[in-house]
């Protein structure tokens, strides 16, 4: 069984994992809306920028993005200013995961916005609303229910992808148990990790199912 030190280590690893997943889904959702609005905008510059953003962050591995931020930025900074600085690995993880989640969520949000019947925008405009008012009051609120399931999906993916941060000196859940397994030669620690991952994803699944039902009250 686990001793107290191991228990705390596993708890800390779980917290690291959870923190990165939760911060990145929240930041990703906020910036995802902005990038999604850019994608459907008639403004060519906004359109091109968001297209490029999504193209880059979906088209390269998350691990690579993590490396660029953690390893490349301090070197670029050194070359540019002649000064070194210690980059906080946790901050790197937040930034990389949020940037990556933004790209995926932007596409999810764009698809949800485009799935709302065009008549809704027309009715809002006919009532004198501006594009911005129509989007914030009429269109985007109607996407919430349709966003819950893909958001839950994305959160579960993020939660599992946090294991990538072991490469930048962070002790997430998986790395913590791997260290224990190597030290003791026992595989049982992997089972503990699996149980914790499953426990967390179960909670996500249940909570998101509930949210979907609640947000759909206006549908018959």
């Amino acid at each position, binding site marked *: 069984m686990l001793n107290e030190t191991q228990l705390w280590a596993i708890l800390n690893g779980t917290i690291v994992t959870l923190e990165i997943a939760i911060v990145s889904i929240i930041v990703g959702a906020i910036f995802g809306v902005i990038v999604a609005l850019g994608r459907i905008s008639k403004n060519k510059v906004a359109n091109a920028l968001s297209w490029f953003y999504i193209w880059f962050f979906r088209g390269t591995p998350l691990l690579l993005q993590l490396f660029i931020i953690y390893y490349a930025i301090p070197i670029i900074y050194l070359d540019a200013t002649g000064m070194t600085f210690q980059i906080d690995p946790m901050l790197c993880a937040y930034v990389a995961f949020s940037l990556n989640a933004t790209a995926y969520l932007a596409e999810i949000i764009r698809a949800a916005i485009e799935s709302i*019947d065009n*008549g*809704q925008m*027309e*009715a*809002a*405009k*006919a*009532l*004198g*609303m*501006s594009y911005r*008012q129509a989007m914030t*009051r*009429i269109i985007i*609120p*109607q996407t919430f229910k349709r966003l819950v399931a893909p958001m839950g999906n994305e959160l579960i993916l993020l939660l599992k992808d946090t294991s990538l941060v072991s490469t930048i000196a962070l002790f997430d859940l998986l790395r913590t148990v791997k260290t224990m397994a190597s030290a003791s030669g026992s595989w049982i620690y992997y089972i503990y990790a699996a149980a914790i991952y499953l426990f967390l994803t179960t909670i996500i699944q249940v909570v998101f199912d509930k949210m979907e039902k609640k947000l759909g*009250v*206006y*549908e*018959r």
Partner: protein
Amino acid sequence: MSMIKLVNVRKSFGNLEVLKGINLEIQPGEVVCIIGASGSGKSTMLRCLNHLERISTGEVYIQGELTEKREKNKDLMKIDPAKVQALCAELGMVFQNFNLFPHLTVMQNITVAPTIVKKINKDIIEKTALVLLESVGLSEKRDEYPSRLSGGQQQRVAIARALAMEPKIMMFDEPTSALDPELVGEVLATMRHLAEEGMTMIIVTHEIGFAREVADRVIFMDEGVICEQGTPDEVLLNPKEERTKIFLNKIL
């Protein structure tokens, strides 16, 4: 002063010209019914009035003010978009598919635009909304979501929603075409009531009987032009144009 004026309005979608030079004036208090086959440009003309579609060529005036002047899809005049938006808000529009906001209750559907566009106090507009709901016979449905209403009830809420913005003109785009036959009557009754109160109305409809009864003027459109217009008796009973006769024979 006319409420609405179109001067030589043309509208093309790609290579397809839907409106081929429309001249139209609507006077205050007038009830105008527009009839014609699908594809004749009736709905497009209506949508050009409140700028849901941008015209290709021509001029649009709302209450004597120029809101659009274009030539071959290019603006000939820069007109302040805020002014255009304010003038367009004077035109209430009722759609074939109701287009109620499904995530809002009946009450919220009616109050949302006045509160955010006209910044009217919520308590005041809710009182107005109740009066409007009363007048369309739906005050007991104030807290229901649209999905729980029948088509006829939804369309009556949509009419109340448009009226809450206190429009000078009400436009109806085939308001009963998506309804089951037994629900058409209640919507027409609401519209008849509005006409009796002196509202200026433009109604695109296939309900010839209704047009005869409420219209001051009937316009028959065919292939993107106004083919014939006059009093209901002139156009519907004694049409002069061959195309009007053929159309009326088909639908009556």
